[in-house]
């Protein structure tokens, strides 16, 4: 008897979610090595969800748009677990999320691609993601590939007059990917890579590593997550005086780095990140919305998180149902030209055009989101230095 009640209740719950809500999965790295970076990104996703539901929800019947969150921990194993649950238990229509490249690749290869579910990552930037698919069209991202950022960083180093540099990268998909691009382009521009070594994340000491590399140069390109060794590595390098100038990318760009190492020690440190063209119409529209919700509009990957969630809702609306197989094509249709321009927050307008059978072209907070054949977008990058105890970014042309 009890079993039957439980089974009945389960059927009822499943039936009600299936009828009333459109559910997407959102495995973010809520815990793990970069929680500070992820918290505002999560707020960006939630803001998009709020806007969509305020402006009429999904489809003609006004179904609720629901974001089912899980914790991918910036870890391949945790991401596979989280996404497996989202796809098989929560029965989500699509995945918007995995933050880190390693997590995104692992969950796509072993869960979402075999299940035929679209993944739209908010910040995974490893070049390895571009060519990971074989015949399917299921992996997209709203952040630019590090194939571009690595080049931008090499140009930045050159413009700072750096002639030789040591490269130390954490042994994971994101950091190894951008380190490879950086080293290749820096060498092609005539710079000298004195050493290019992987380091194991999460070690208590990196003194031996920095001592070995520091004998040849004063400049270090550090590719790591700040929470899993990046800060310790920089601290060790400064303590023993092995390096004085540091450059790096997104994974290190957090207030934590300044709080722990001290602004006075970071005078010649520059980190790049994916950013938005702040004069564009898309960013202006987004900034008004983000300011109203008290979210850092220009925070790393915060606009990209909003864009990804918003685009996923538009794609489902365009597809006309929560059917997983229709999402990939619909996503390309709403994100790529031609069509009437839709800016962040204009869900009701887009809904009306779609209902009338028209085409839309979403121009996002982080810039145009036209996907190329690999599901990648172009993007802008900024160079960030410490000013008055905080990171301050300027866009790289």
């Amino acid at each position: 008897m009890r079993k039957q009640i439980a089974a009945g209740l389960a059927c009822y719950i499943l039936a009600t979610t299936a009828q009333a809500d459109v559910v997407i999965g959102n495995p973010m790295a809520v815990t793990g090595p970069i929680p500070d970076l992820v918290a505002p990104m999560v707020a960006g996703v939630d803001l998009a969800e709020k806007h969509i539901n305020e402006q009429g929800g999904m489809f003609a019947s006004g179904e609720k748009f629901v974001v089912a969150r899980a914790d991918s921990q910036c870890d391949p194993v945790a991401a596979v677990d989280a996404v497996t649950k989202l796809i098989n238990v929560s029965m989500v229509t699509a995945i918007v999320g995995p933050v880190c490249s390693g997590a995104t690749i692992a969950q796509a290869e072993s869960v979402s691609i075999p299940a035929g579910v679209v993944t739209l990552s908010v910040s995974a930037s490893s070049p390895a993601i571009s060519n990971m698919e074989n015949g399917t069209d299921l992996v997209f991202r709203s952040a630019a590939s590090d194939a571009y950022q690595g080049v931008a960083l090499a140009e930045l180093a050159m413009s700072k007059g750096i002639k030789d540099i040591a490269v130390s990268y954490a042994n994971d998909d994101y950091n190894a990917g951008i380190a490879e691009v950086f080293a290749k382009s820096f060498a092609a521009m005539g710079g000298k890579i004195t050493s290019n070594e992987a380091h194991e994340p999460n070690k208590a000491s990196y003194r031996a590593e920095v001592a070995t590399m520091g004998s040849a140069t004063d400049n270090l390109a550090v590719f790591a997550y700040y929470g899993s060794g990046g800060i310790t590595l920089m601290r060790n390098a400064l303590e023993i005086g092995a390096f004085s100038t540091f450059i790096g990318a997104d994974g290190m760009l957090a207030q934590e780095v300044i709080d722990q190492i001290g602004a006075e020690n970071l005078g010649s440190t520059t980190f790049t990140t994916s950013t938005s063209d702040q004069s564009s119409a898309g960013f202006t529209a987004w900034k008004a919305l983000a300011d109203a919700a008290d979210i850092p509009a220009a925070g790393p990957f915060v606009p990209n998180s909003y864009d990804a969630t918003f685009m996923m809702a538009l794609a489902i609306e365009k597809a006309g149902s929560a059917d997983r197989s229709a999402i990939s094509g619909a996503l390309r249709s709403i994100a790529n030209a031609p069509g009437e321009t839709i800016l962040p927050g204009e869900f009701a307008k887009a809904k009306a055009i779609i209902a009338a059978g028209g085409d839309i072209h979403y121009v996002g907070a982080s810039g145009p989101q036209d996907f190329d054949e690999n599901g990648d977008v172009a993007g802008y990058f900024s160079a960030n230095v410490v000013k008055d105890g905080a990171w301050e970014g300027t866009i790289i042309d």
Partner: protein
Amino acid sequence: MWETFGFEFVNFYLIPGLVLGCIYALGAIGITLTFSILRFANFAHGEVMMIGAYFTWTAMVLSNDLFGVPLHPLVAAAPAVLLAIGLFILVDRYFYKPFRYASTIRVVMASFGMMLIIRSFVQAVWGPNQLTFVPGIAKPNELVKNFTASVDMMILVPNKHFWIIAGTLVIMFALSWLLTKTKIGKGMRAVSDSPELAKVSGIDVEIIVKATWFVGGFCAVAAGVFLAMDLQMLETTMGFRMLLPMFAAAILGGIGRPFGAVIGGLVIGLAEELSVYPWFGNGSLISPGYKTGVAFTIMVVMLVIRPSGLFKGRLF
């Protein structure tokens, strides 16, 4: 000799290896004691280290905010040690004791669960973000630097490393006295050798168990605070990350041999750091990305050729 083993070797490889070895050693003492006296691999041991460091951080912040007195981490560690040990005696009473005479795998699983519970608890209370333990960077001690430089042997050691090495030595001597000279220490060694025999000769096993948690917990919290002093920050997986090398140290030294654990910890800490020294040519001997592998290679080789460890520990 100094031409080949220059001071770079001492400053950047040997001393950091020793510091890391001290932290492994203190952690491994607790593991080897629980392994031999309570007869299970306590996976929650890393969390004792972690929560001890968090308690210490809290004591430092409270003292600074309420009374305006900045405490040295080692002073703030005193109340933290008591809290952490009290917590683990409670954990033992309610989560491990029910399994004391059941098969080992159950209590191992219980400790695994406890590890996740404590980590989640800390994340809920203190948040998943890193906390700054001591801000800034630690410059080498000027006095030692100038003195050694004047005799052409410049030694660069920050103060925090003096504290860590000296603290470990003090704890080691205290432990040696406790285990060899006191009744409770002799009792612990007796239970470790044979719990049944110890029981029939009138030793109260439950008291010994409490003493084990006390000694193991004390060393673990000391290891956690030393680790936080070295890293200058706290995060919730800091203990867990040290757990496997500490197991390797305990096994290397021989299970049930606290001094074996100390030697094992030092060997593993030194091996990890020295394996990346450029012994031949200019590049590091092995890529630093793989230095953790060194610790486990030593452990596996040891298990194969001499399963009882360096100091003839217990075989399971």
